[in-house]
């Protein structure tokens, strides 16, 4: 018996070590970013435009472009991903072949290198669709890219809702769509939010797919058809191309993380409200 509790303790300790190890690595990177980036950050850095290719000046227009690209990306990818995930999780027993095909293609899509997405986006959205280098083409390319991860995590979230609801709904002859909308989606909210965060994180962190689509122009975008530089591209350019751009690269990375944190907190808050409102039927 003592042997058993000892091995239990060992396993518990090991799992704590894993979690601490991951936290440690994360804090290491985070500390690196914060310690290099924080001296540069000020209100003017956030609002003013880029000067000297980013070595001085701020990142105001870049933040705006990034948010616009993200907005386009989410507006397109969320409906697509939601619909696909619903098909995969709720209707999957009715058309086996078709759902298999969809889920296979999503898995393949997940493995396509981001640079290939970039080249594809450039050929398809910029040239064939005639959108040129623009926030719109960047957002659409990103939407294709985050689709698998978004769909997969929404699907997992939906599947996590107990089948009891579905059976009860069927017994009461409630149309599945109503059931889905009123019960299952709200119950799956935490999973959906986690998936959304993963997708947003992926979209914000993307570099290679955007260089060829949303472009490099660091002016304040006037419309969705203007080219606009995303934060991650700015970081890449500063860190890799511009001598002396390092500190501002770190500062920009810090802003990116803060942005992500803000989005994350807002999403958490919204999901809690949503959960409360809907489940109190």
């Amino acid at each position, binding site marked *: 018996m003592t042997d058993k509790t000892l091995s239990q303790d060992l396993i518990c300790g090991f799992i704590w070590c894993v979690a601490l190890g991951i*936290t440690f690595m994360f804090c290491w990177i985070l500390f690196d970013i914060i310690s290099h980036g924080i001296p540069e950050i000020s209100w003017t850095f956030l609002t003013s435009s880029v000067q000297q290719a980013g070595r001085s000046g701020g990142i105001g227009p870049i933040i705006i472009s990034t948010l616009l690209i993200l907005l386009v990306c989410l507006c397109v990818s969320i409906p697509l991903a939601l*619909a696909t995930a*619903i*098909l995969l999780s709720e209707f999957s027993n009715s058309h086996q072949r078709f759902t298999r095909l969809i889920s296979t293609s999503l898995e393949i*899509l*997940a493995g*396509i*290198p981001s*640079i290939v997405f970039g080249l594809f986006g450039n050929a398809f959205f910029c040239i064939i669709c005639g959108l040129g280098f623009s926030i719109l083409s960047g957002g659409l390319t990103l939407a294709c890219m985050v689709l698998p991860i978004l769909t997969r995590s929404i699907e997992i979230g939906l599947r996590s809702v107990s089948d009891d609801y579905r059976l009860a709904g069927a017994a009461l002859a409630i149309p*599945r769509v109503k059931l889905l909308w009123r019960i299952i989606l709200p119950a799956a909210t935490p999973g959906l939010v986690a998936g959304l965060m993963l997708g947003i994180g992926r979209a914000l962190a993307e570099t290679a797919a955007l260089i060829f689509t949303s472009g490099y122009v660091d002016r304040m975008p006037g419309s969705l058809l203007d080219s606009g530089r995303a934060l991650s591209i700015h970081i890449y350019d500063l860190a890799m191309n511009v001598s002396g751009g390092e500190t501002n690269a770190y500062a920009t990375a810090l802003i990116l993380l803060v942005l992500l944190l803000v989005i994350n907190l807002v999403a958490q808050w919204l999901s809690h409200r949503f959960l409360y409102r809907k489940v109190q039927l």
Partner: protein
Amino acid sequence: MSLSPLDKRWFWLCRFFAFTCALIICFIILFLFVESIPAIQSIGLERFFNDSSWHPTPDPSTGSFNLSAMLVGTLAATLGAIIFAGPLGILAAIFCHFYAPKQIAYLFRRMIELLAGIPSVVFGFWGLVTLAPIIRNLAPPGPSLCAGIIILTMMILPTVVLLSDAAIKNIPKKYIEGAAALGLSRWSTIKSIVIRASKEGLSNAIMLATGRAIGETMAVVMVCGNIAQIPNSLFDPIRTLTANIALELGYATGQHRSSLFFSGLLLLGIITMMVLISEKLKSEAIRD
């Protein structure tokens, strides 16, 4: 369960949207194929695997176009990353559910979500400036397969953790309550019930993460050393197919450019094979 008319309409809408996803894949394959046709025609498939090395030139008669070293590099880096990130990520998800106090689990999840949003450039930069010198002290030259595996592990970890976390949440509560009623210890519950019940979700998480690892570009360019060779040890530099595209595309013309697209197509082939094999395994597992 039959579908009501309202359901049917929604069902078709969902199908239409899902079909769009599949269409994107077709477009990408078509695009890669069209771009790589010139290379396949003028260089020929066998030269991509039989040439002496990778020293491409715009003119196919003077260059050599062997991609196999990079294929090995890609597979080695991906495999290494998945070997670490898979178990670590699943353990971290288990930590969130069964070991951590609620508050810590909450913070841990937020942290992992933040980790998912760190740009690959930042990982790569950190790897180049901090990690590579540490590895160089152990075994020169520093940027190597090992550095690549570490960075890739960190990059795909959030995917594994968050998706496994969702999959574990998926398990009906009664299973775990039942296990508790039987007097099973925490770890036995996890081992014999949690992992088994969430097997499909966990394997999906790992599949997605593998895809991410294969497709990662910018970070790998910075930490892997980029020599197109078959590595003899963990500390040898390697070049992955994605790194190859990122490094040379900006300067490539003619057949060189086209052969880079071919390497993209090759990558897509590997991914497709992997997906199909894993699905086969999955369906066999279900049948058993």
